[in-house]
């Protein structure tokens, strides 16, 4: 029998839809303090020279939070963009292709950012 809890757990035809919904909220929660931190650290940066920026990023605490915000942000934005694409593109082929391309690009860009931080920090 298809009870509501069973469907919510992903055993119904929607399968993993609930997972997306939860992950979107969890990444959003993570992004709240991370964003405040990131905006603050950029706003108070008085010296915008290469050396100062480099030193700031190579600080292990800053590097850690930068990587955390990169992961959270790129995950959150992928789920968001996916929903937008699903809403506005009716053609099955175009919709699926665009979602896949978007995820590929955003994953690559996210990895590029994280790698840059790690390279600076190590």
């Amino acid at each position: 029998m298809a009870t509501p809890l069973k469907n919510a757990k992903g055993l119904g035809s929607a399968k993993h839809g609930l997972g997306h919904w939860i992950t979107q909220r969890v990444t959003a929660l993570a992004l709240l303090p991370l964003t405040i931190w990131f905006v603050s650290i950029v706003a108070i940066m008085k010296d915008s020279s290469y050396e100062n920026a480099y030193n700031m990023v190579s600080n292990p605490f800053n590097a850690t939070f930068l990587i955390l915000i990169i992961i959270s942000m790129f995950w959150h934005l992928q789920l968001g963009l996916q929903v937008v694409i699903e809403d506005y593109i009716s053609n099955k082929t175009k919709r699926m292709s665009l979602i896949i391309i978007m995820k590929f690009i955003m994953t690559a860009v996210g990895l590029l950012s994280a790698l840059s931080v790690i390279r600076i920090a190590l």
Partner: protein
Amino acid sequence: MSDAHKISKDGSKPRPLSPHLQIYKWQLTSIMSIGHRASGVALSFGSLLIVMWLVALATGPEYFSLVHNLISHWFGQFVLFGFSVVLFYHMLNGVRHLSWDLGYGFDLSTVYKTGYSVIIMAVILTTITWLTVWFY
């Protein structure tokens, strides 16, 4: 979504659709809702700018100075300013969404109060941030 513009192969007129965006009254709720989506999409593309900065920093002083000059240019500052406005709006409205997910604040007067609060707070946070950038 709208097939009204397609002329069918036998040349017959497309079926008419009733107007919606042209006639339905714009309200704070609908504006903020599409604003949340639009800001999310804008931020997704804007994030690429942050990436650009990080990659330039990791690559070396020459690329970094190029990116730095782009940011320092008035247009770069304009884009950055716009990005911050959009970021604060999306973040604050996001909190509003999270409170709805928990079941709070659905009555219409609260929806309007929280809606206006989000807009006002976004303006305040943007102001504080940029005053800090320019005068700290």
